[in-house]
């Protein structure tokens, strides 16, 4: 029983670590993510649009299997976890071999190795020491540091470059796992929400994507917000001046714009939207007595009573951003400030009258004519709001670390080549002394082959120069791979 369990585990392990499983998983991820871009997705798409695009039965099926929210469906998460397990298994399975390769480089080639190595050459020499010395010099010229390997029965040179390249694949795999880890952390403890502020207001309540409200341990205050446009009217810049208030103390201030968020305690505030609230902020009026006299300028805010003289007060009681008159009543058509109307009451204590003053004068309702003062609008400021996207994604640091590691890993994988060279003086079959040179590279072998040829040529030349006259000319033989 125990044995069969062990063998089951073995089978699972082997399946996970095989390249075939990896490729099948990649294909599955590709298919399901493609489906997720073609089928309308739940949180982003309006329910009405979904109902229009698919029949009710179809929609039920899609919802049931999670295809309307592929990237958050349980089975998709499970698939991603399986991919991670597969990467781990494949790396663990292959790592010991590579690490042995890395930790204990093969320095002294034996006879079998020498026979099967694809890239090798032999040059006849007179003297072991002389040959190795020359080889050392040539290698140094090409940037290879070499070491002398002394064994009981042999004496040779070993040289290598960029051994780290053997580990590069594991760096890339580890980086991918780091990125997944970041994603998982964010899926578990990260959150995203939205926050709307008008200048002067502060809040610590955030409306989450899920609909619930989240309370922050600190609050955020908006001091001002605005937009700038290009001359053709397209938006150029949205900004909000924000302040962080923690325990009643102002901690920091920042003017955020799109592409430059405010970060505090790992919570990020992004400029996401901007608009007019449709509420009155300030109205500037020119006030002239109806009977004639000096004009004065006053500014009014909503519901604030301002005295024009000791007996008369004005007060804004209503602001309609987009008014329409129907059956003697004033209605608001929308919240956009396109056709505003202001309802002001002018109270006179002396005559004890209340006059409904409308700007603009709406006939039938307005009593502008009987007002003791003529009000003339000069400037109207309506309120603005700024919409902030709020997110907390602690996993992003793992993601960025993963990205950096991957960039380094990929550079090593593709462009850093582990090159090894061995130089061994040998007794040839017919008793003459030769210098055996072998080389190997873990990738980009054709380029290495060229380099190897150059090395051998130079070494041949060097040796020739050393041993004039050459006792017995033997052509260097170079076997390709």
């Amino acid at each position, binding site marked *: 029983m125990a044995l069969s369990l062990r063998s089951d585990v073995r089978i699972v392990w082997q399946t996970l670590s095989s*390249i075939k499983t*990896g*490729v099948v998983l*990649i*294909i599955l*991820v*590709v298919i399901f*993510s*493609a489906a*997720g*871009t*073609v089928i309308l*997705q739940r949180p982003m798409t309006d329910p009405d649009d979904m109902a229009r695009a698919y029949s009710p039965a179809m929609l039920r099926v899609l919802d049931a299997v999670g295809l309307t929210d592929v*990237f958050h469906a349980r089975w998709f998460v499970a698939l991603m976890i399986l991919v991670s397990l597969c990467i781990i298994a494949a790396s663990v399975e292959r790592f010991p071999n590579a690490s042995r390769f890395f930790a204990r480089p093969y320095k002294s080639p034996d006879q079998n190795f020498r026979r099967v190595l694809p890239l090798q050459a032999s040059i006849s020499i007179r003297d072991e020491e002389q040959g190795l010395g020359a080889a050392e010099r040539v290698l140094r010229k090409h940037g290879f540091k070499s070491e002398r390997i002394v064994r009981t029965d042999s004496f040779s040179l070993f040289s290598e470059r960029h051994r780290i390249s053997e580990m590069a694949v594991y760096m890339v795999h580890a980086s991918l796992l780091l990125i997944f880890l970041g*994603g998982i952390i964010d899926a578990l403890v990260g959150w*995203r929400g939205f926050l709307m502020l008008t200048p002067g207001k502060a809040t610590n309540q955030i409306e989450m994507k899920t609909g619930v409200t989240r309370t922050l341990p600190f609050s955020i205050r908006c001091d001002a917000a605005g937009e700038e446009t*290009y001359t*053709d009217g*397209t*938006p*150029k*810049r*949205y900004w909000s001046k924000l302040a962080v208030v923690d325990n009643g103390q102002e901690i920091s201030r920042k003017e955020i*714009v*799109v*592409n*430059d*968020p405010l970060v505090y305690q790992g919570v*990020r505030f*992004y*400029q*996401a939207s901007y608009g007019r609230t449709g509420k009155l902020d300030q109205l500037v009026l020119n006030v002239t007595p109806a009977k004639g006299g000096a004009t004065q300028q006053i500014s009014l805010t909503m519901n604030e009573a301002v005295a024009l003289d000791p007996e008369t007060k004005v007060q804004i009681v209503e602001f309609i951003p987009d008014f329409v008159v129907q059956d003697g009543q004033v209605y608001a058509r929308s919240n956009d400030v396109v056709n505003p109307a202001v309802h002001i009451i002018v109270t006179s204590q002396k005559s004890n009258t209340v006059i409904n003053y409308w700007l603009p004068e709406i006939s039938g309702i307005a009593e502008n004519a009987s007002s003791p003062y003529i009000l003339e609008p000069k400037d109207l400021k309506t309120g603005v709001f700024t919409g902030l*996207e*709020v*997110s907390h*994604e602690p996993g*992003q640091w793992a*993601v*960025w670390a993963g*990205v950096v590691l*991957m*960039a380094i890993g*990929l*550079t090593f994988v*593709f462009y850093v080549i582990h090159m090894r060279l061995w130089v061994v003086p040998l007794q040839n079959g017919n008793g003459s002394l030769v210098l055996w040179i072998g080389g190997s590279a873990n990738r980009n072998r*054709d380029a290495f082959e060229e380099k190897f040829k150059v090395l051998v040529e130079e070494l041949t030349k060097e040796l020739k120069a050393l041993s004039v006259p050459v006792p017995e000319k033997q052509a260097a033989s170079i076997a390709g791979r």
Partner: protein
Amino acid sequence: MTLVIMVGISIAFLLFMAFLNVVKSGNVINEANLLYAALVFYAGAGALYLGFGVTGTDSYIKFASLATWAGLIVNTAAVAHRWYEAGHPPFASLYEMLLSFVWTLAALTLIAEKRYGVKVIGTVTMPVAIVGVVLMQLLRSEVRPLVPALQSTWLHVHVSLAMLAYAACALSFALAMMFLIQDKMKTESFLAVTSIFTAGIYTAVLTRFEGWGGFNVVAWDLENKQEVFISRGVRLFVTIPDLGWLMLLVFAAVIAPLVLYLLSAFRKDETLLSIANRAVFISILLQTLALVFFLLRTRDGRYSSLDAEGFYPTSLAASPFILSALVSGIFANLLYLLLLWRREDLERLLPSSDNLDRITYKTICIAFPLLTLMIAAGAFWANRAWGSYWNWDPKETWAAITWLVYAGYLHMRITRGWRGRRAAYFAILGFAIVMFTFFGVTYLLPGLHAYA
């Protein structure tokens, strides 16, 4: 040599005529003129490369690359001019992206030719460059200020990486195709691929077939140079009468070689195959006819619409995808004819299949890290602009899919030792997905990446 002289004279003539017009208007160096010059040079180069492909005359290549150089220089000037005018690198709109893409393509063509000795590559890339420049004439070209979300250094990093990666993918695709030619793949297989590709194009085109032989195109607002919208995001379509029948006829003509090929494969009948090859020729003629009619009918006249009262004009600019689909259909079939007639010459001119296989792999080794960095830069930027590094937006998802496909290629190649044909198929698949990510996603699956 006649071709060289003819092309030379045409280039000189076209440039001279343009110059006369330009001198009259007084404004010599502007982007439109530079682009026009680039178009003339690229067209000349394309003609010479094609001439080289057909006749195998080596001297054509010299002049072809000379013309490409000239085109690249003028193109560089156009890019620089645009950059200076706009105050940001030309990556912000489809027009600007095409400008950079054509530039990269021309530069890579010269590199592939000089560095790797892949001489006929211009036969493939130059027509693509020409289509790019022609498309640019149709798109909105005025410098538009950057909307807030695009005002970031990461725009430049992200998009230039994308352009480089995509161009490298395009190169690996062309090399893989050449490998297949050099690898003695049967001409019939190319026939099948070409026919399926063209049939796919016309199937897509025929989705616009309407009622009694009409053909729907998007209405074009001539004054504002933009599509007419009925409501937010819903375009107004007008129906060009009778063009639909022509498209249907062409579809039949395109299907014919495919059916004949399948029959010949089924019955093992060689004569059917030669009929199929003739059918390809006929389909090219019909496709050209369809293109000409499409060009003529969209350029003038006003057409009625099913969705709104009255008559509306349309324009080529309103249907850039139909136009490029029609052109690429003709182009693919012409390439097949070239292969059919000049197979031996092509095989002689191309590097050995081993070399092509290796260079394909090397270009993917360049493309893959670039793709990775492009996605990483995009994620970093998204984290600053949208509030999250990964939104599962269609463009992002498809970029990830592209990355996965190339990752699959690398794994199969490195651990499973996939070489040759299977690797070439993989490279072709990868590029098809790249093209879908670049163009298809933008038009079919809108999302956060709405501007490009």
